[in-house]
């Protein structure tokens, strides 16, 4: 099947001016390694795809959303009930946000366990961890925007936790809330953070991250590399374009199908409008990806050795975050058999199990 003459002519016209063929050629030359862990290479693309969905649906939501205490809830309600496909756009935005964070965790932990952070990809890791923090920031700020009861009180609890950080807590609390309490001012502030500040930062860091991925290519796990060296057999690979990209696209289509199913069968709830004067309802909890931190702080005793348990907990979580960020500089010889490197792998599994168990405890609290 050949393209119509007018289309071929248009292609030629565009090629003369843009030179798209060089990008296509670049893609054809770029090789993606093939081995038993190759499936994890698709997580980055999937995260990027879901981020694209977030941007597209977020822009559509912006057309109706009104970021004020008196109108936020009503505007989302109107969108859900009266705007054609408004319910679909919002539900996809909310479900996709959760899937994005989930896939991002898979991407990050796979990079960690497969030692993809090692030289020369330290900056790729750092920008990736920064992107994870930004995505969680998107989640935290976006959660409040519908201005419903659960979001209101969860934000109150979440910002209170930020306020407990020693030295800078009070400043952070006021910076986040725009005052002493969670009010309409907080909503406007979160809206600004959600649609302007975080997207701007993400654009820059994501650009650097993608550029670095292009520059260094896909990382091959040390074990696979060592095996290849030992046997003398070169690693198999396939072209990024079209082989890898088509597989990526199959995954994206599947993700789109999952999102469509979730949005149609379980549309994202709106809940009840926030009433700042009402008492907090039972069962307040943050989004699941903050669950492990929430549960950890909840489990701590009020005082540990005369110190406030919550403050110590926040310091411990912050320290763990710093260690995670600095992994490429701490695990410097990630070769098979290296003890330090193995300890990092074991710590990673422990962290994963801990996060899974504490998150489960948020949804299925232990009685007694």
């Amino acid at each position, binding site marked *: 099947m050949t393209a119509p003459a007018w289309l071929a002519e248009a292609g030629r016209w565009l090629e003369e001016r843009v030179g798209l063929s060089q990008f296509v050629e670049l893609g054809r030359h770029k090789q993606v390694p093939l081995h038993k862990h190759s499936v994890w290479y698709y997580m980055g693309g999937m995260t990027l795809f879901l981020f694209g969905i977030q941007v597209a649906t977020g822009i559509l939501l912006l057309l109706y959303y009104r970021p004020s205490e008196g109108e936020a809830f009503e505007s989302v309600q109107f969108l859900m009930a009266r705007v054609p496909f408004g319910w679909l756009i919002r539900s996809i935005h909310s479900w996709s946000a959760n899937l994005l964070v989930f896939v991002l965790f898979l991407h990050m932990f796979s990079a960690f366990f497969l030692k993809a952070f090692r030289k020369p990809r330290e900056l790729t890791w750092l920008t990736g961890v920064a992107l994870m923090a930004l995505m969680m920031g998107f989640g935290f700020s976006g959660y409040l925007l519908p201005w419903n009861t659960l979001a209101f009180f969860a934000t109150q609890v979440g910002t209170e936790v930020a306020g407990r950080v*020693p030295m800078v807590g009070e400043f952070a609390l006021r910076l986040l809330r725009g005052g002493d309490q969670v009010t309409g001012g907080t909503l406007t502030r979160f809206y600004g953070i959600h649609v302007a500040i975080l997207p701007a930062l993400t654009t820059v860091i994501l650009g650097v991250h993608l550029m670095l991925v292009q520059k260094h290519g896909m990382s091959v796990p040390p074990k696979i590399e060592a095996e290849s060296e030992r046997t003398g057999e070169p690693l198999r690979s396939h072209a990024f374009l079209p082989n890898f990209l088509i597989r990526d*696209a199959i995954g994206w289509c599947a993700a789109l199908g999952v999102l469509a199913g979730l949005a149609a069968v379980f549309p994202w709830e*709106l809940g009840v409008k926030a009433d700042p004067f009402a008492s907090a309802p039972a069962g307040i909890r943050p989004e699941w990806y903050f669950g492990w931190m929430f549960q950890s702080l909840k489990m701590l005793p009020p005082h540990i050795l005369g110190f406030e348990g919550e403050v110590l907990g926040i310091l411990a979580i912050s320290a763990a975050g710093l260690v995670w960020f600095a992994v490429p500089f701490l695990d410097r010889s990630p070769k098979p058999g290296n003890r330090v490197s193995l300890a990092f792998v074991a710590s990673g599994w422990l962290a994963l199990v801990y996060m899974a168990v504490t998150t489960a405890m948020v949804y299925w609290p232990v009685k007694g």
Partner: protein
Amino acid sequence: MRPWLALTFLAVAGAAWSSAQEPKPVKAPEPPKIESTCISCHRQLSDAALEPTKHLDDVHFQRGLSCHDCHGGDPTKGGDDDPAAAHDERKGWGKPTRLQIPLFCAKCHADAAYMKKFNPATRVDQLSEYRTSVHGQRNAKGDDRTAVCVDCHGVHGIRTVKDPRSKVHPTQVADTCARCHNDSELMARYGLPTNQPGAYKTSVHARALYEKGDLSAPTCNDCHGSHGAAPPGLQTVAQVCGSCHTREGSLYRETEKKKPTLNLTPAIQCVVCHDNHAVQPPSDEMLGVGPKSTCTNCHQPDVPQYRSAERMGRSIQALSARLEEAHRLLDQAERAGIEVTADRFALRTGRDHLVEARVLVHAFDEERFLASVDEGAKSANAGVTAAERAFAELRQRRVGLVVSLAVIAAVIAGLVLKLREIERGPGLS
């Protein structure tokens, strides 16, 4: 770097330590200290003579009054050696008889100048109100078996009405009244039944008071008056009930004026349909001609009022059922994920009309009643229509999902085929 670390550690430790300190307990104020030989002597006695000394939290004692202020005598004299010096009749020692008690208490409680020293807002009309009551009238005629102040408020250990331990606290009043009104021997003297306290305990009012803890729910004195025969200024049963059920009361009074031919004597007011002590929650079945109807108690099938009751009953029950159906369908749609908050809110208008119609029953005006029911029915129908629209959208969503999943599956299949085609050639290196 180290000094900074040390300073940070100290600051964090200081902040954490200071917030960990427990607040100091607040000390309760001590009761007034009143020197009296009455208390010191009676504490050494037993039974009835000892009993008054156990009530030092009595409201009078707490405000500075002591035994001799009611019983006379000389509390500075006496002691173990000479109790007669304290019990000096020349100094007014003694205790009032049951017939004297109302006047005795009124010596202070009817004295505005004296009482306002303790509470500027306090009432001083209890005696005059009491004299309007059957209790007070019989007492004035020399009947010492009827209730006097101490029967309700207690003799010693009197507490304020707001104190839940007080015999006249709303939660205690029915039991306090029951002490006499459940006494069949005593009530037989006056030809009164003794079923009122028991009947009251089964009423909607008692359930609100005891089960929901609603202290504004009526107990005996709210209808019968605290000291008088009825709450001040109220003459009829409709007025008494209408003091809380204001809209029903005013509609009833309007009817009295508009339809003077109706025989709305006090004997056939609210209590005819609602009972007096065992007032039950009203239901729509009370209206109409069904087995639970109260209309048919008076109106026989051959009168126009019977047919009117039939129409009213049928219409309000239909509205109630339609509203329930609309709520059920909207709940179902909401559980399926359709946003119906605005429709649910609009349905409140129907509920308001239903409540309005229930109240309008007391106007005995069928036209007015049916107008409200019709408005409610419009709202209920709109709710059902909204729910049906929601279900139609739900079906549309499911169809849309199936179609889009089919398209996605087709695209995936196409991509897989394309990939196979590519990889049959020299794709891998």
